[in-house]
């Protein structure tokens, strides 16, 4: 079974702090994704990566950056956390090569910025 893990289920940070969210997948997937989930808005893509050291902006990249130094790990960075970044963050991974490939999701990190 594919397993996608995220470093924290719950996180509380203060405004202005630098925040790291970590995601690890164990199935050698090429593609990895970061989403944020907000009520009434569904999931919105922040960034994705289709290879090591590669990254592409999603629909809402402002205020975020990412890092992918190893194939299995994809990090989301909030350089200076703000209250409007309070949200649920979901990581996902998938095989490359076909648009029909399923994305496998992690359990999510609920981030609160105070």
């Amino acid at each position, binding site marked *: 079974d594919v397993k996608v893990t995220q470093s924290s289920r719950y996180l509380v940070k203060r405004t202005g702090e630098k925040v790291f969210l970590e995601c690890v997948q164990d199935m050698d997937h090429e593609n990895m*994704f970061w989403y944020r989930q907000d009520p009434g808005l*569904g999931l919105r*893509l922040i960034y994705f990566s289709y290879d090591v050291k590669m990254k592409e902006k999603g*629909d809402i990249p402002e205020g975020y950056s990412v890092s992918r130094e190893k194939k299995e790990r994809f990090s989301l960075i909030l350089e200076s956390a703000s209250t409007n970044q309070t949200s649920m963050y979901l990581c996902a991974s998938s095989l490359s090569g076909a*648009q*029909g490939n*399923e*994305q496998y*999701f992690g359990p999510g990190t609920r981030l609160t910025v105070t």
Partner: protein
Amino acid sequence: AQTVTQSQPEMSVQEAETVTLSCTYDTSENNYYLFWYKQPPSRQMILVIRQEAYKQQNATENRFSVNFQKAAKSFSLKISDSQLGDTAMYFCAFNYYKLSFGAGTTVTVRA
């Protein structure tokens, strides 16, 4: 980003009955994939069913089936013989190089 619309924020269904969730999308593309994902309370999101736009036959996975109307850009999900374990938020998603999600429909199955 492609637009995916789920017009039903919440639905409630009696155990063993059938419920249908609606989804419409907007695209000018011809070949793409559509998905329904399920997010149970406090659990990970999982794939329920997928449909390739080129296939006219509607996808079916056990008690879950879709009604795909390409011209109408409609992709509804039918859950038959609802079970308590079907209680979850359901997301419709459109994939053309990246996945776009609808806002979700919360389904509650009553005993």
